């Protein structure tokens, strides 16, 4: 298959089209503007609906509405805009509505900066809005993966009737690289017989809400949601490993920092430092089990977590490994990204400290 050069944001948008998205609702914000821009031209070509909403709040509630009617619906934004969408995402989780939310993260807090960041990890992996819920969070580290994951996100959302977040950073959105449009494996999906799209011969009206006034009923709903999240944790956790068999230091990173780390690991190995990479591809569910296994390897001396934040995923690494090995952290917040040299230096420093 032929390689094509694509910009990250546009590739994500085209991937959604190929996944059969019917409706896109969004409000502009850098660094994800190419997604709605692309959709505004492309979706009408395939009979879809594009609306530039009056606000982020409106966009996510349009997703709620379209999804309720059984459509494949999505929105995209960047950090401050995704914060505004949290109420709607919580309602979708409560009403068990599928939907895809792309967050091309930028530096925060508040309006922050337009440069790439990973500072929304907590928000994305802990639910983000009110209530006991989780969203599936897919974390691509290059454009090919962003394309594959975006397509998969729609199937996952429909399969589990839950919002799915594609958590990218500004670098993935803005950069260009070649990708291949190959067929992404499709899931067998149940019919959307729950959708509020007319009676269609049913003997009842479908009613979609997240409101459950009766406390015992609401408790049972929460338990049912948890069983679903347990099932997702059992079945959908994904990660990638590089040189983990014999490593003394395990660099753990997702997204762009993981990609930068692969170059650092290559150079560390060339210098005789046995480094490896553990890269979560789903950050919720987090690949805790496998990470704990690697942490227990006798050859492993330390773990270095690298993020474009002040340290968020590092808490999941601590939880997963129960800190059986020393855990170091290297973070570049506020729109900066780690360098190959910076990661190497931190890795060597940490190894020296633990020896």
């Amino acid at each position, binding site marked *: 298959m032929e390689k094509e050069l694509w910009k990250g944001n546009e590739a994500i948008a085209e991937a959604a089209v190929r996944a059969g998205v019917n409706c896109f609702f969004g409000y502009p914000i850098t660094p994800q503007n190419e997604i709605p821009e692309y959709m505004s031209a492309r979706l009408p070509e395939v009979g879809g609906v594009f609306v530039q909403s009056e606000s982020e709040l409106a966009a996510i509630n349009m997703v709620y509405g379209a999804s309720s009617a059984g459509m494949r619906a999505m929105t995209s934004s960047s950090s401050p805009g995704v914060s505004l969408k949290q109420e709607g995402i919580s309602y979708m989780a409560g009403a068990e509505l599928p939907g895809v939310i792309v967050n091309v993260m930028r530096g925060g807090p508040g309006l922050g900066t337009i440069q790439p960041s990973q500072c929304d990890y907590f928000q994305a992996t802990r639910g983000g809005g009110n209530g006991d819920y989780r969203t599936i969070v897919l974390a691509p580290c290059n454009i090919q993966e962003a394309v594959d994951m975006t397509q998969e996100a729609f199937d996952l959302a429909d399969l589990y009737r839950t919002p799915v977040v594609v958590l990218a950073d500004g*670098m993935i959105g803005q*950069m260009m690289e070649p990708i291949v449009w190959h067929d992404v494996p499709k899931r067998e999906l149940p019919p959307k017989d729950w959708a509020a799209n007319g009676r269609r011969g049913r003997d009842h009206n479908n009613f979609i809400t997240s409101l459950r006034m009766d406390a015992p009923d609401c408790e049972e709903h929460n338990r049912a949601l948890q069983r679903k999240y347990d099932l997702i944790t059992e079945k959908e956790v994904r990660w990638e490993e590089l040189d983990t068999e014999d490593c003394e230091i395990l660099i753990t990173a997702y997204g762009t920092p993981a990609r930068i780390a692969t170059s650092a690991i290559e150079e560390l190995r060339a210098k005789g430092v046995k480094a490896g990479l553990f890269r979560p591809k789903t950050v919720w569910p987090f690949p805790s089990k496998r990470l704990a296994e690697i942490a227990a390897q006798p050859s492993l001396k330390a773990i270095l977590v690298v993020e474009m934040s002040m340290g968020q995923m590092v808490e999941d690494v601590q939880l997963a490994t129960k800190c059986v090995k020393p855990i170091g952290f290297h973070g570049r917040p506020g729109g900066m990204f780690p*360098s190959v040299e910076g990661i190497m230096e931190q890795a060597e420093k940490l190894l020296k400290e633990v020896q």
Partner: protein
Amino acid sequence: MKKQIIISGFGGQGVMSIGKSLVEAAVSEGMHATWVPSYGPEMRGGTANCSVVLSEEPVGSPVFTYPTELIAMNLPSLLKFEPNVVPGGIIFVNSSIIAEKVQRTDVKAVYVPCDTIANELGNAKVSNMVMLGAYIAATKALKVETIQQMLVHMFTGPKAKLVDLNMKALARGAECLEG
């Protein structure tokens, strides 16, 4: 072979498109390549740059501290990135608007009067193609034929007459390496 290139200049000088042309050509030659723009809150007339990696192996980090080549289309770009170029690397200077010389002695300097040549060819817009021609001639990282094929692809219909102009710009840039 692995090239880590910084291309930098004023907005409007075509620095982003030099980068895109390099990446596109590399991909069509079967190489791996990445292009990362600086997309900061740049002011009008401010300096913009992009980072390009061309490699026979899959690209790990698309960003880097030490470029193997620097293409400086204006003075602020030369001043900013000259110290970071790897020893033995190449600095390409748009000598039409940069009077200063490269200070480093452990790198090769290539002076290309991009705007002067472009104006001689009758179209100021092709100054970036002049620089691209010089880059390819100096590094041999890509085949010039690949770029030529891209131009034929890019300019069709009423724009087809621009193919010849761009080919000439590439050739004139390459000539700057002779003698």
